C-alpha cells in the first residue's frame, strides 16, 4: 500500500507537468500575438519587437515551456492581457475562492440529501418507495442546471420572496442557498445511486446477518455495520462528483450573477485573455488531481482491505 501511495505521489507531478504542457500548447495556439495584445492597437512595430524580446516570445518552445512551468511553480501564471498587465493569479484567486465556497456548500447539500436517501432506498428495496426514489432522482439528475436555476429563482425568489434572486454575499448569506441547491441536487442524485448500490451490497453480507442474529438493535446494525461500510465505495466517487459539480457551477454562476470563476472564464474567452483562461484550466486540473489523490489515499487508510496496485 505504501508503494502504491508513493507511486501515486511520484506520478502526480509528472501528470501535472504533462497537463501544463498541454495547456501551454493550447495557449500558443490561441490567436493573436501576446506582445501585440498587451500593447494595444496603436503600438509601433519597434515597440512590439522590443516587447516580444522582453517576453522571450522568440525563444525556442522548450525554453519557453520550462520558463512557463517555473513561473507556475512560483505562482506566476503570466500577466493578464485585458487587465493591463495585472498578474493572473491576483485576478483568479478571489474568483476561485468564491467558486470554491459555492461548491463546498453544494457538496454539503449533495451529501446531506444523497447519502441518507440512497441508504433509505436500499433499505426499502422491494417496496414501491425504492423505485420511486430511484426514478425521481434520475429525473433530477437529468434536469440540466439551466432548468433548476430559473425554476428555483422564479419560485423562491420572485414568487415567494424568501431569498434574493441573484448576487453573492459570502458563504453565510441567504443568497448562497439557491445556487448551492442548484448545483447540489444533481450531485445528490449521483450519491443516491451509488449509496443505494453499495448499501444493497452490504445488506447481503453475512456479518450483517450475524449482527442481527446476535440480537443487536436495528439501529446499531444499520449504522455501525451497514452504513459505515456502505459509505466506503461512495468516497471514491466524491472527487468525480465534485468535478462534475464544478463544471455545473460555471453555468450556475452566470445565471445567478455570482462573481466566481465561471463569470471570469467566460469574460476571459470573449476578451481573448488567454493567460487567465489557461491558468484557470490548469488550476482546475490541479485541484481535481489532488482531490482524487487525497481521496484514494484516504480510501486505502480507511479500508485496510484495499490493496491497490
Amino acid at each position, binding site marked *: 500500500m505504501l508503494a502504491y501511495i508513493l507511486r501515486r505521489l511520484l506520478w502526480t507531478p509528472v*501528470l*501535472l507537468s*504533462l*497537463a501544463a504542457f*498541454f*495547456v501551454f500548447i*493550447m*495557449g500558443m*495556439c*490561441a*490567436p493573436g500575438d501576446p506582445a501585440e495584445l498587451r500593447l494595444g492597437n496603436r503600438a509601433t512595430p519597434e515597440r512590439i519587437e522590443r516587447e516580444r524580446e522582453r517576453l522571450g516570445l522568440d525563444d525556442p518552445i522548450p525554453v519557453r515551456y520550462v520558463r512557463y512551468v517555473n513561473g507556475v511553480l512560483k505562482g506566476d501564471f503570466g500577466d493578464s492581457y485585458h487587465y493591463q498587465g495585472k498578474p493572473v493569479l491576483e485576478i483568479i484567486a478571489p474568483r476561485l475562492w468564491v467558486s470554491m465556497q459555492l461548491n463546498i456548500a453544494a457538496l454539503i447539500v449533495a451529501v446531506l440529501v444523497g447519502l441518507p436517501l440512497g441508504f433509505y432506498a436500499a433499505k426499502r428495496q422491494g417496496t414501491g418507495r425504492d*423505485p420511486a426514489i*430511484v*426514478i425521481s432522482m*434520475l*429525473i433530477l*439528475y*437529468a*434536469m*440540466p442546471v*439551466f*432548468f433548476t*436555476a*430559473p425554476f428555483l*429563482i*422564479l419560485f423562491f425568489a*420572485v414568487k415567494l420572496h424568501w431569498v434574493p*434572486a*441573484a448576487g453573492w454575499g459570502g458563504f453565510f448569506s441567504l443568497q448562497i442557498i439557491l445556487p448551492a441547491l442548484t448545483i447540489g441536487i444533481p450531485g445528490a442524485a449521483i450519491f443516491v*445511486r451509488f449509496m443505494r*448500490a453499495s448499501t444493497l451490497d452490504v445488506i447481503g453480507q453475512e456479518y450483517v446477518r450475524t449482527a442481527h442474529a446476535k440480537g443487536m438493535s436495528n439501529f446499531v446494525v444499520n449504522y455501525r455495520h451497514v452504513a459505515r461500510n456502505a459509505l466506503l465505495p461512495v468516497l471514491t466517487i466524491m472527487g468525480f462528483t465534485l*468535478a*462534475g459539480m*464544478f*463544471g*455545473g457551477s*460555471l*453555468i450556475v454562476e*452566470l*445565471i445567478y*450573477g455570482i462573481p466566481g470563476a465561471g463569470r471570469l*472564464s*467566460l469574460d476571459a*474567452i*470573449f476578451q481573448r485573455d*488567454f493567460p487567465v*483562461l*489557461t491558468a*484557470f*484550466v490548469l488550476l*482546475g*486540473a490541479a485541484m*481535481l*488531481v489532488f482531490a482524487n489523490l487525497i481521496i484514494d489515499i484516504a480510501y486505502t487508510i480507511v479500508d485496510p482491505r484495499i490493496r491497490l496496485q
Partner: protein
Amino acid sequence: MKNSQTFDPPEEMEPKLKDVPAARGHWRNIWANFRRRRLAFISLILVAFIYLLGIFAPVIQTHDYQETNLRRTQQGPSTENWFGTDRAGRDLYTRVVWGIQTTVIITVTSFATGSLLLGVTIGLVAGYFRGWVDAVIMRVGEVVSAFPDILLIILLAATLRPRIVEFARSVEDSTGMSGLVSSGIVDYVVIGIALLPLSWFGMMRLVRGQVLVLREAEYVEAARAMGTSTPRILFRHILPNVVSPIIVSVSFGIGAIALSEVVLSFFGLGVQPPRPSLGVMIGEVTARGGASVSVLRDHPEQLLAPIIVVWLLIFCWNIVGDALNDVLNPRAR
C-alpha cells in the same frame, strides 16, 4: 441498476416462454427483452421522435428561423406561433426544431468519430498489444481526464475556433468555394474537436478492459494458432464480443455529449448565430445581456420548450442505457 420494469408478473411470462421457438437470434432476444421494459421502450420512442423532429426540421418548420417580426416580440403561444416568439419576434417552435437538428448532428458526428472510430479502435489496439503502446495511450488518457471536462472543452473551443475559422477562410479563398464559414460547418468541426477528449477516453478504457480479458480466451488463441491476421482477430473475433458494453456506453454517453453541446452554445462557444441552438436559446433568456432576471421573470415560458427537450434527451437516454445494461449484461446487475 434495477428499476421497476424488472419485476414482471410470472403469469405473464409463462405463456410467452412457451410460445417462443427454441432457437431465436441473440439480438432478437435482446430486443424482445428490451421491449418488455415499458419505461425504457417509451423513452426510446421519445428519443427517436425528438431526433426525427431535428432531422425533418426544414420540412416541419412553420417560419424561417432567422425571420424576425418586430411587431410580434415576446408573444405567448398562439396558433400563429405555437411556442410563442422571442424578443426579436422569431418563432420559437421553428428555432427549437432547428436547435434539435444542431444537437442531433453534433451528437451523432462526434460520437461516430470520437467514441466509435477513435475510442473503439484505440481501445482494441491498446488492449491487444499491451506493452508500451498501451502504456502511452493510457498515460495520455490520464492527462486528458485530469482536467475537469467542461473546462477542457471550453478551452479547446475557445482557442481552436479562430484557427479553424481562419483555415476555412483560406480554403474558401484558394478554392473559390463559398459558404464554408457562413453555413456553420466550421462550428460543427470546432465543437466536434472540442468534444473529442470527452468522448474517446471513456470508450477506449472500456474496450481496452474487455479486450485484455478476451485476448486470453481460447478461441482467440485458436485463431492466432491458425495464422489469422491480427486485424482479422481484432475486428472479427474480438470486436463482436465487445459490442454489448459499447452499446450501453453509447446510450449513456449520448446524453452527456448532447448536454456538452448545449453548454458550449450557452457560453457562446458552440453554434454561432443566426443558426439556432438549444444552448443559445437558453442563454438568451437566462444569462445574456445583463437583463437575466427580468426576462426570466416576465417571460419564463420562453425557456420551457428548449429546456424540456434537453431534459427529455438526457433523461430518456439514461433510462434506455439502464435498460440496455440490464438486458445486455445480465451478469453485471
